[in-house]
């Protein structure tokens, strides 16, 4: 039987029993849509969150800290040693000093993170308002929103405000005593951006603006490798050197594992809906089989082979399931887009950020179409076999 005739014979059900066929397709569509929506939600949440916390480079970056600064300080020598590790592309140190920041009459205690602009890139750090500093020797400062609040700065107005910086330096005297000196930096810094952090008060300032301090010990070094596959190797080497290493990619891996679990759970809900639809479809095919028993008898009597009958039924259930799959994709897009629109409207109303809650990877759409067709074959195969093996005479006499 060629394809044209196969289609012609199998798809009569769409014109002769449009209501039943339509309902079966919708059931299948709803089942498929359930899976799609749940899985898209899982993917959407994952994607949204990962986009928030990561830049592509931050994923290739390892954070190196020392377990004990007195025994194993992170010095310039160590820095250059680390930068010579195989596949290391870039290193960016960070020194932390306590201090105070003042704006007019207001003064606030804070922690100063002294770093190169590259540190932001490697750390995946972004601002909420304004920009990060881009040059090494600019007199600019990036502060956390917690600090901005304590300086009574709000929103855009904070940008370009001039602040005074004083640092607390620990000096060891000749007698071996620790003494804290306050260093007031003469020239004021202007605020270039604010990082979204409502809890911790801190500020970033460029390293070269404090050249005179001759900072030789760091609290943390960010190490970027050239490709993701080198992370594990670099990690091992750094650990051998005695450092504590953590990487964002580890965290992302953990998060991905959690999301994978969420997706599977959500997908399982969808699968239940789909199983219900598939059973409904098998039921419809069985009813169709009974209804067409006489027709099967006729066809076999005038020379249809068992295979012809089987193919006809199988093609029909495949077509129904395929259309169910396509319909399900349509329903999924309709529902996920409208839900997204509603959520975003609410979010904007409450001052939040617009996000896309749903994300359907294109491979998943292809998978779902193939999968739904497969379900069609599965739920059609038994009725089809039964139809094919039916005794011709009994089928002919069936009314």
């Amino acid at each position, binding site marked *: *039987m*060629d394809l044209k*005739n196969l289609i*012609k*014979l199998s798809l*009569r059900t769409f*014109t*002769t029993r449009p209501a039943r066929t339509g309902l079966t397709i919708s059931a299948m569509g709803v089942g498929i849509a359930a899976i799609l929506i749940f899985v898209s939600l899982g993917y959407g949440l994952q994607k949204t969150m990962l986009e928030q916390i990561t830049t592509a480079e931050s994923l290739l970056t390892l954070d190196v800290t020392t377990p004990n600064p007195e025994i194993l300080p992170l010095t310039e020598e160590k820095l250059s040693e680390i930068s010579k590790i195989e596949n290391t592309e870039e290193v960016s140190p960070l020194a932390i000093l306590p201090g105070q920041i003042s704006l007019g009459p207001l003064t606030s205690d804070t922690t100063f993170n002294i770093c190169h602009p590259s540190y932001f890139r490697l750390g995946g750090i972004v601002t909420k308002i304004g920009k990060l500093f881009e040059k090494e020797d600019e007199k600019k400062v990036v502060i956390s929103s917690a600090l901005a609040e304590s300086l009574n700065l709000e929103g855009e107005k904070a940008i370009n405000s001039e602040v005074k910086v004083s640092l607390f330096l620990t000096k060891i005297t000749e007698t071996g005593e620790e003494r804290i000196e306050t260093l007031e930096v003469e020239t004021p810094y202007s605020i270039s951006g604010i990082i979204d952090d409502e809890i911790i008060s801190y500020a970033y300032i460029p390293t070269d603006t404090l050249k005179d301090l001759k900072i030789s010990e760091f609290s943390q070094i960010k190490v970027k490798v050239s490709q993701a596959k080198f992370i594990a190797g670099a990690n091992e080497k750094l650990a051998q050197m005695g450092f504590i290493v953590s990487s964002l990619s580890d965290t992302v891996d953990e998060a991905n594992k959690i999301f994978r679990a969420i997706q599977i759970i959500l997908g399982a809900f969808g699968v239940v809906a789909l199983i219900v639809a598939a059973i409904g479809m098998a039921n419809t095919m069985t009813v169709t089989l009974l209804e067409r028993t*006489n*027709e099967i*008898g*006729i*066809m*076999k*009597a*005038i*020379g*249809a*082979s*068992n295979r*012809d009958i089987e193919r006809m039924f199988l093609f029909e259930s495949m077509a129904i399931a395929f259309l169910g799959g396509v319909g399900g994709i349509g329903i999924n897009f309709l529902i996920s887009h409208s839900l997204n629109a509603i959520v975003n409207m609410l979010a904007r109303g409450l001052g939040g950020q617009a996000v896309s809650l749903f994300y359907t990877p294109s491979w998943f759409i292809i998978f779902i179409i193939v999968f739904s067709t497969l379900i069609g074959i599965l739920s059609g195969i038994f009725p089809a076999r039964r139809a094919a093996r039916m005794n*011709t*005479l009994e089928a*002919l006499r069936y009314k």
Partner: protein
Amino acid sequence: MEPIIKVKNLSVIYNLGKSNEAVALDDVSLEIYSGEYIIFYGPSGCGKSTLLYCLAGLETPTRGQILVYGKALSELSQEEMVSHRRLKIGMVFQAYNLIPTLRVLDNVLLPNIFGGLIPGVSSEKAESLLKKMAIETLANRYPPELSGGQQQRVAIARALIYDPQILLADEPVGNLDSVSAKIVMDTLSEINEKLTKTVILVTHDPFYLDYAHRVFHMKDGRIIREVTNPKRKQIGPFEEMRVIRKAPLRIKPLLQPRAFAQYLLTSFDRPVIRRLERGIKKRMFGKITEAQFRKILDRPFEKGGVGLYRQTAESFSQKIERVLSESEFLKEEIPTEQPLAEIDIRVRNLRKFLLESWEGSLKKEEELNRLDNFIRLRLEGKIDGKEFQRRLDLPFKGGGVGLNRRTARNFSRKLELTLLR
């Protein structure tokens, strides 16, 4: 001159090996020559349709052989059978059997749609056939919009789409008024004469017997008479005489109480049938009079009767009296069952027990014999349960019974349970 169809000692038995076994065809032999118009004639239930379906390869013979063009139908592979149904024969049914959801033209082309290895025919061919049937204007209509006579002509066109040499028609005018019936019968006659097709037609209506070259009169699964039509020039090597052969009416199967019961009853409960059988048996052996028998039939079931309506009871008893009076050898022919060995009885009972719990039924006598044989082997402990199941499952050609796996397993399990007891 060689006949194109040869039927040798053909028997078809339904529910083989079960207690409701029914003989549909009993040892039928005949030969049909190319270009003949043949009618199987007889009352309903005489086996004429069964014979026709055997020729079409739709019914599996229990015994005997059918040769079409010298080839035994039982030896055809599945594919060859498909091509037999499509290329060698055309089928016309009483109920037309068109597909209501396909246009007339597509219905005629339907056999062609199931391609396979058989070369296709063009839709022009279908159109020209419709034209021959004088219904070419209806090509794009759907069958339910057509009259019965028109539908039957569509069915004939469909049967002829592959130009088969043999046309089989099962009561083709049974559903038609006399005018339409005449048109269809004339059409078939024309197909026989002008296209020189062999037409084999089944009917219970004596009105149409004149169309045929030869008529096979059938009753109770047997050909009781073969009559040539003196008005038509014979094709086969027959003298033009009216009755060629006459088979004696065999009444033996009728005299069995069960056959009687089946003859009378269609949809009664088992207990009712059993009670009726007992009554018939008593009457057959002359233990009760006709009046007593009638009373038993009429008496309510609760009071030990069969529980029929009075009129039914009367009609039943009349029918039975008629048959009894016709059978002169009543006493002699009472089946005196040969004493069976104990193991044979056990085998038979077990086989019945197995078959009766099964929806399907065996088709060939040889299958039944093999089943009996395997049960016997199992009883004698010569094979184990597993081997028994395997042999049931084995295809017929491989020496087994050819049951499907589930049935074989069920049978084996049941048998093992009985053996435990």
